[in-house]
């Protein structure tokens, strides 16, 4: 009997296990976690909003109603309360603004929608930046060890010794305020955590037998590190990255709130919050919605990150 026949026979008896990849398992586990699904759902909605912002937004986010042709001047009042026709709380001839107008007579709802773009962009770009650099540093450091490891990790320790927001503020102060510089600062600040995570998983993976086997077969360092070790050290990075997006968005909002991040008239949530913080009591809608949007986004990434951590944890494998 040939090998093929044996397998075919087993197949016929329904005894072979269909090979299942890590990702399929993870997905399956993730799907069972309700909180993670909520996170994923919110995130999906946010991404949709980000892409469809021009279609969804009723007005230009940086244009004052005073500049909009044909807009009735008597209703173009700064910080006007929300006007929703269905609720019947404002006259029909008043244009509808479901989140009211902001301090510069702009439509708060449109600004909020466009803000989704900025926040998601901030989250993904800074974390990508930090992951790329952190992975290279951590991998090199963990794989080669010795003095190189010492130098890199001590430098990372130095970065970690500063409170991250403080360090980001220091970097932005040197580079000058602005969204790009804020992104760079947050990226730099979050490098160490990724470098550490990658280093620790590389340290454990590089001792595995299959790595030794590759080395015995004459694989180059590069080959071993990037094709054998790294793919197997990725899981904790994914978790860290998802959670990292949440903190990056928070940090960016904080920088903008302090006037160091996004510059006017960009509709960044942190900036919107800062602009109207004096109006907590006179125009609460202008403070509530951006704050709520930040909270929702951060929550989505945190829920998803937590779910991913559980789903990717091999110790929980028997649960599948």
């Amino acid at each position, binding site marked *: 009997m040939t090998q093929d026949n044996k397998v075919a026979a087993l197949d016929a008896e329904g005894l072979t296990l269909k090979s299942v990849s890590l990702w399929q398992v993870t997905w399956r586990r993730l799907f069972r976690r309700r909180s993670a699904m909520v996170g994923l759902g919110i995130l999906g909605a946010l991404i949709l909003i980000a892409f469809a912002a021009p279609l969804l937004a009723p007005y230009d986010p940086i244009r004052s109603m005073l500049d909009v042709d044909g807009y009735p001047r008597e209703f173009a009042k700064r910080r006007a309360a929300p006007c929703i026709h269905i609720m019947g709380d404002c006259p029909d001839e008043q244009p509808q603004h479901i989140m009211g107008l902001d301090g*510069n*007579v702009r439509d708060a709802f449109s600004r909020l929608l466009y803000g989704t773009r900025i926040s998601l962009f901030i989250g993904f770009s800074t974390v990508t930046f930090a992951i790329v650099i952190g992975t290279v540093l951590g991998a090199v450091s963990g794989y080669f060890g010795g*003095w190189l490891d010492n130098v890199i990790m001590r430098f990372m320790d130095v970065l970690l010794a500063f409170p991250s927001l403080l360090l980001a503020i220091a970097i932005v102060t040197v580079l000058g*305020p602005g969204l790009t510089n804020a992104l760079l600062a947050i990226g730099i600040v979050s490098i160490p955590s990724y470098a550490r995570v990658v280093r620790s998983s590389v340290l454990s993976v590089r001792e595995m037998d299959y790595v030794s086997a590759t080395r015995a077969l004459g694989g180059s360092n590069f080959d071993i590190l990037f094709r054998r070790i790294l793919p197997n050290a990725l899981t904790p990075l994914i978790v860290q990255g998802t959670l990292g997006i949440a903190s990056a968005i928070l940090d960016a909002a904080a920088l903008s709130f302090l006037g160091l991040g996004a510059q006017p*008239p960009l509709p960044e949530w942190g900036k919107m919050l800062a602009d109207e913080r004096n109006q907590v009591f006179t125009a609460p809608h202008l403070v509530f919605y951006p704050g709520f949007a930040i909270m929702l986004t951060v929550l989505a990434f945190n829920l998803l990150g937590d779910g991913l951590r559980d789903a990717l944890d091999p110790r929980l494998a028997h649960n599948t």
Partner: protein
Amino acid sequence: MEERTVNKKLFNLLSLLVLASMMLAACGGQATEAPATEAPATEAPATEAPTEAPTAAPTPEPTPIPDVPIATFDGTSLSVPAEECNGDYAGLIQSVVATDANTVTFTLCRPDPAFLSKIAFNVYGIYPSEWIEATAGDGIRTSEGLEHPIGTGPYMVSEWKRGESVTLSANPEYWGEAPYAETLVFRWSTESAARMLELQAGTVDAIDNVGPEDFETVKNDATLQLKERPALNVFYIGITNTVAPFDNVKVRQAIAQGIDRQRIVDTFYPPGSEVASHFTPCAIPNGCVGDAWYEFNADAAKALLAEAGYPDGFAMKLYYRDVVRGYLPQVSNVAQDIQAQLKENLNIDAEIVVMESGAFIEASTSGSLTDGIYLLGWGADYPHITNFLDYHFGAANPQFGTQSDTYTDLLVEGAQIGIPTEAESIYVEINNAIREYVPMIPVAHGGSGVAYRADVTNPQASPLGTELFYVSDPGGRDTFVWMQNAEPISLFCADESDGESLRVCEQVVESLYTYEINGSDAIPALAESCTPNEDLTVWTCALRKGVKFHDGSDFDAADVVATFNMGLNIGSPFHVGNTNLWEYFDYLWGLMKKPGG
């Protein structure tokens, strides 16, 4: 063993190298960054002038020649040689002499009809001569001088908790009406909402600069009262005209016509504010004679800009400091509205740059913000047209770049005429010339409000921002708590220019004259009267007798001379203050010096 030490050495060497390269990289990064942030002037032409980019040849910085002191002081007389008045000495005061213990005579180089209004300014408050000698010197001014001013005022400073409050206690020997409240406390908060909350909670008796959105709240609250402060100020958009495109008068006129100022005032200013028809408010004699400012006309503006060679607009910066002032209560919103209007009406892309207050003042007033426009304003120090026009448009002021001689010469002429009606024709010409040349765009005269608890008597909102709290009774309570926008910078009253510091000084030190409560007329204070000679060049002041300083010493003419010696005489060892710029002594009188070399 041998190998290990080699390895260790190698390791040390390498780590050193890495560290060194990191430091180099870090320093290198800064070095390349610095020019972009600190010297936009040199970059501006290349990036922003599409037509011609004059490559400025690096001129070597000329070594500054120190000014030469020219005054002599002997305790009872401070003077510069009379012939210097016609020479290089640009100052106004030729001498301050104590003729006897209770008489001081000011001799001026030129007639000054605004003398009384100026001398009433609190910066010229009189200090005891002994105190000046004890706390000042060639070395560093002691903290006593910076935090505990000694004057003759109704209150004395008892404690300054940095970052928290300044506490003043009543002067038991005050020569005037005794203060109502035993203790006067100054507190501060930059947020108008926070100030409002404190007032509503009853923890403070009065707050300065009620937020525009809170005017109605205060009016509708029976436990509060609102006092509106007349708009004796101006908010303007400054343009430094040294570099293209701003060196083209058509560009400046285009911006002037392309901004809807009415909309800014309607949208962002509290009641009582008005669109500026002229730089000087109309309440000041001759302030708004001549043609009113350009009407908003987007099409005409666009045409002018095209004519100047920028049909598609250009990119520039819009500078401001995030500081609330009566002339500009909603800084960031106004800046964003101007940004939006420039884009909408003229297709000018303005990048907003928020600067630290001190750095902004320094950069704007020295004329180094050449790659854009800036938002600044002016509140009257004393109610005279020279306080507005001469300061801003005098030939020596670099803040708008090059001043035009179509008005600079006339300003000198107008300042010497005492009777407003006689000077009117000159000021018509000046105002029209400024309108034509557009060194800046006057936008608004901002009204502001002070809110008091309803039981406070004699609520004040001085048009000059010089409220004197000893005349107000805080509902019978012992302590009057006042909350303003910011903490005083320091209390060296003769060398301060910040309104928040000067308001504390106001309660402590007194000048020869003062401004009437809730008004701007100069009335006698430490002097019983100051009378001029025929041509307004000699002013003789009869001093009040029996006045005592807080430290118990008697007030006499020598104190007046010593105070002016400290402020004006750059050769004096006591000419050491807080900033050492002596801005108001320099600007209203002129320091006693002439250029060296």
